[in-house]
């Protein structure tokens, strides 16, 4: 994938770009719609954010009792910490170590964004195995799928602006190698989750609501 021009010309790696745009979401509200079996632990919502901690996402969750685990796997991927050949550890262990989810955690919501498309099949299956122990029957995940493998994923990071709106920022770092996986592959390789609902967006991305598999 080629980096889009905004991301490609951005400055220092540590800098964070401001919100570039917002996108109405038809799937997001359902992420916050618990089913009958989706009871929260002590009324506390537990969220896994796979990207960077963004102000709007933290602000959004700040009105409820919650615990947000921030595991910026994009950054870890960039640093080679999710490559078994670099770390010398099994891939699954690499993901476990970098997510560092405390024992006993039950994740209610996983914000995976477009992360799966930066992983190959082997990595994605390992990521799924690493994530699986923390899921429960009611776990829901938000993932961007793609309409086809030719869909271009821009070098963006995402957050939650409100219950119906995604925030989009250009990433300030160079784009990572990306190979968009069509939904059928995503469903097969992301073994701990299955697509529950998908909504095609004008840019070829597919907003996916995923749920934990049996």
């Amino acid at each position, binding site marked *: 994938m080629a980096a889009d021009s905004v991301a490609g010309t951005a400055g220092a790696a540590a800098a964070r770009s401001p919100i570039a745009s917002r996108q109405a979401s038809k799937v997001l509200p*359902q992420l916050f719609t618990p089913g*009958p079996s989706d009871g*929260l632990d002590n009324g506390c919502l537990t969220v896994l954010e796979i990207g960077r901690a963004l102000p709007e996402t*933290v602000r959004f969750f*700040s*009105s*409820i*009792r919650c615990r947000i685990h921030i595991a910026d796997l994009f950054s870890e991927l960039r640093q080679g910490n999710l490559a078994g050949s670099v770390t010398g550890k099994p891939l699954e262990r690499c993901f476990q170590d970098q997510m560092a989810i405390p024992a006993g955690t039950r994740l209610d919501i996983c914000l995976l964004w477009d992360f799966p498309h930066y992983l190959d099949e082997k990595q994605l299956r390992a990521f799924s195995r690493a994530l699986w122990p923390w899921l429960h029957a009611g776990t829901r995940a938000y993932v961007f799928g793609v309409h086809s493998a030719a869909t271009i994923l821009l070098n963006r990071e995402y957050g939650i602006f409100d219950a*119906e*709106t995604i925030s989009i920022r250009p990433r300030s770092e160079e784009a990572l190698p990306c190979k968009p996986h069509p939904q059928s592959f995503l469903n097969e390789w992301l073994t701990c989750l299955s697509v529950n609902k998908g909504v095609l967006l004008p840019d070829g991305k597919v907003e996916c609501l995923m749920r934990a598999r049996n």
Partner: protein
Amino acid sequence: METKAVEPPIASANPIAPPAGKNAVIGSGIKINGEISGNENILIEGRVEGRIMLSGNDVTIGKTGQVMADVSAKTIRVAGEVSGDLKAKERVVISGSGNVHGNVVAPRVVLEDGAIFKGSIDMDPGDAIAAERAAAKAVGKANGAVATGAAGGMGASSAGQASLIAGDAGSKAPDLSLKSS
């Protein structure tokens, strides 16, 4: 978490309490290894390793501050670097120049644009917002918000999902307190 907001101490009511606004400062050339406790607000521009316990006061880690310590305070503001857990009775603010690696527990957490954070955030806004939300929910029900079907848990189709978000949708904040056990 059961933490609740605490009213700030009133200096005139307690002769032992420091005057309002009085701050201790650890300058940028100072290094401290150990435990800091007491009853004054503190501004840290230097380096602290160990533990900081100022439960009734404010702790500010300035832009040049480097803290390798767990911090417990009334409010905590970070503009420098922290490696350790932050626990505040009222609020934690990580400003744009702040870099925190650790876990945060506070009723309110604010991350400003540019802040870098790695760890987990535990927030519990407490009774005020819970009451506000309960009132909003009641209004939503009165306006005809209805649960539309029953979901089957895993693998349930979207058509069969229960919609528990208040129907007036006036507020776009998450409505997730409905399944409290």
